[in-house]
């Protein structure tokens, strides 16, 4: 069969290759149709950001309604709330990065120094646990622990003779709750990638270092850390791509009106404008604004990764 196809002209060869692969196309087809319906049709639906649609129209009417240009984008960018939203989104993201990024790295290095393998395994297993718990449950746990109505933290504050703090309703403390609960949830899970990279380091390097009289601390600094520097750089670069994702579900579950000024991010704003206030066009415009910048950030991250000589996402 292969021989006959070689004798055919180029076009015919390609066609016969397509025919030969027909069953594989049929296997791909359901997934492809799904992607087109559930991913690409909504991309077309983004056009309502350039229109003025109301929730009372049918979807067909929305698609037929006239274009009005960038009006919603201008309204959004010129509104006083724009600055608050951008600041909140970026600040929360950066706080997560500054406090959350080094933690798993340190944790992985400490785990790597544990002598007893069973102890290490137990600590790891316990630390992965919060990753498997939904944000709904974690937000419930957080609420119960910081509540002024008998929560653990406020009990401790009272024991120390301090005033109780309403953590979830106080703009001064709300972000700390976000960052800490976020770290708590993913700390253990994020060590996996580092620990896997550490296993890949050539053990001969350690042996040579021991022969040269290197202590454990210096081996960790001069062998283990450089050994995982690669993966650290990649993760750091790609966190640029997620800069506008400041933790939608977590904030949705924990925030309330008194802390909007420090906690409202683009995603939560899109949700409230769209689903609660039913301002479909405006909400979609804000969402599109975010998506476009986010896509640019991912592309920048990818280019940067390649500049550093690393393999990018594509």
């Amino acid at each position, binding site marked *: 069969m292969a021989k006959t196809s070689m004798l055919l002209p180029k076009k015919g060869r390609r066609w016969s290759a397509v025919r030969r692969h027909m069953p594989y196309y*049929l296997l791909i087809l359901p997934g492809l149709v799904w992607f087109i319906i559930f991913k690409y049709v909504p991309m077309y639906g983004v056009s309502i950001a350039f229109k003025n649609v109301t929730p009372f129209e049918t979807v067909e009417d929305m698609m037929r309604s006239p274009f009005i240009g960038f009006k919603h984008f201008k309204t959004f960018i010129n509104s006083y709330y724009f600055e608050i939203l951008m600041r909140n989104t970026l600040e929360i993201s950066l706080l997560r990065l500054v406090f959350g990024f080094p933690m798993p790295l340190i944790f992985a290095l400490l785990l790597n120094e544990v*002598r007893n393998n069973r102890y290490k395994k137990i600590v790891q297993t316990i630390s992965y646990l919060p990753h498997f718990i939904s944000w709904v449950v974690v937000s419930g746990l957080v609420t119960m622990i910081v509540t002024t109505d008998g929560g*653990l933290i406020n*009990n401790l504050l009272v024991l120390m003779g301090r005033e109780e703090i309403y953590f979830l309703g106080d703009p001064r403390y709300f972000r700390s709750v976000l960052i800490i609960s976020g770290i708590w949830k993913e700390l253990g*899970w994020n060590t996996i*990638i580092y620990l896997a990279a550490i296993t890949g380091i050539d053990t001969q390097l350690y042996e040579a270092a021991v022969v040269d009289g290197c*202590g454990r601390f210096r081996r960790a600094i001069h062998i283990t850390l450089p050994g995982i520097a690669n993966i650290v750089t990649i993760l750091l670069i790609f966190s640029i791509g997620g800069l506008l994702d400041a933790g939608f579900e977590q904030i*949705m579950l924990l925030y309330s009106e008194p802390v909007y000024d420090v906690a409202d991010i683009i995603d939560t704003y899109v949700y409230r404008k769209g689903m609660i206030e039913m301002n479909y066009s405006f909400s979609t415009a804000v969402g599109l604004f975010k998506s476009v910048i986010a896509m640019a950030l991912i592309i920048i991250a990818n280019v940067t990764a390649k500049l550093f000589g690393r393999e990018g996402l594509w």
Partner: protein
Amino acid sequence: MERKTLIRSRRKKWRVDRITWFDYFNVILLALLSLTFILPFLTVAGSSLLGYEESVRRGTIRVIFPESPDFACYRILLGRNSAVYRGYFITILRVIVGTTLNLLFTGTMSYGLSKRSLPGKNTLTTIVFFTMLFSGGLIPNYLLYQLLGITNTFWVMILPLLINPWWMFIMRNFFREIPDSIEESALIDGASPFRIFFVIIIPLSAASFATIGMFYAVMHWNAWFDAAVFITNTKLYPVQVLMRNVVLSATSTDLNNEVLSGFYNKPPTNALKSAMIVVSTLPILAIYPFIQKYFVKGMVVGSIKG
């Protein structure tokens, strides 16, 4: 072989080091850290056992571990006609139906795309990949679900999540590791690619199906937003949504009016909220130790090859 030498040399590495203060410090630090991961669960479990009588005597404040455990909250939540049972039914149904369809769609598509000789492979990959960079957003999605008539039905929790592109690519890489010779010999024996996929490939890659399947299962189990936003019929609420509503609202009488109204002295609301957290978390805590290693394996494979 390679693994063995690695372990041996690791041991050697440790043997040269004497135990120092750092080892004690490290062990204690990690123990404390582990405690912070467990403590929240323990305190919530403790406060779920606080009864009416004790809350009046000692005040809800400063009680974490009750002197006389009271199971009133669990009698409400797990009593007959409790909404928790229906919630669990929906959640379990969602996990089973959702994960099965996830694996069917993800498995077939990634197997097709795993063929390196497939004409148009790059175009198809790009079509999938682009959805990881850009998406329509909340309202266009919502309008689509309305158009399809799946809002306020069970299917709004299933259909929009059929394929996770990231996991689809991981699965494609799993399939690429299967030696071509196995499929070629089956083709020569006259089996169609469909047959090969369902009779040979799926059993061969049971481990990767299990791994990706568990990713999907946990996603479905934990999902809250889609059900909370696209479903208004309370009869379709999964456990996560019920839990959220109990933690949010102070009264939560709609959970189990029958039992709750039977109480002369109702348990404190915080105890009820805590009990609801325990009830919705316990099943996953129970199976977690057995499934976590598959996740770690999947995570490592995914991050290295993804």
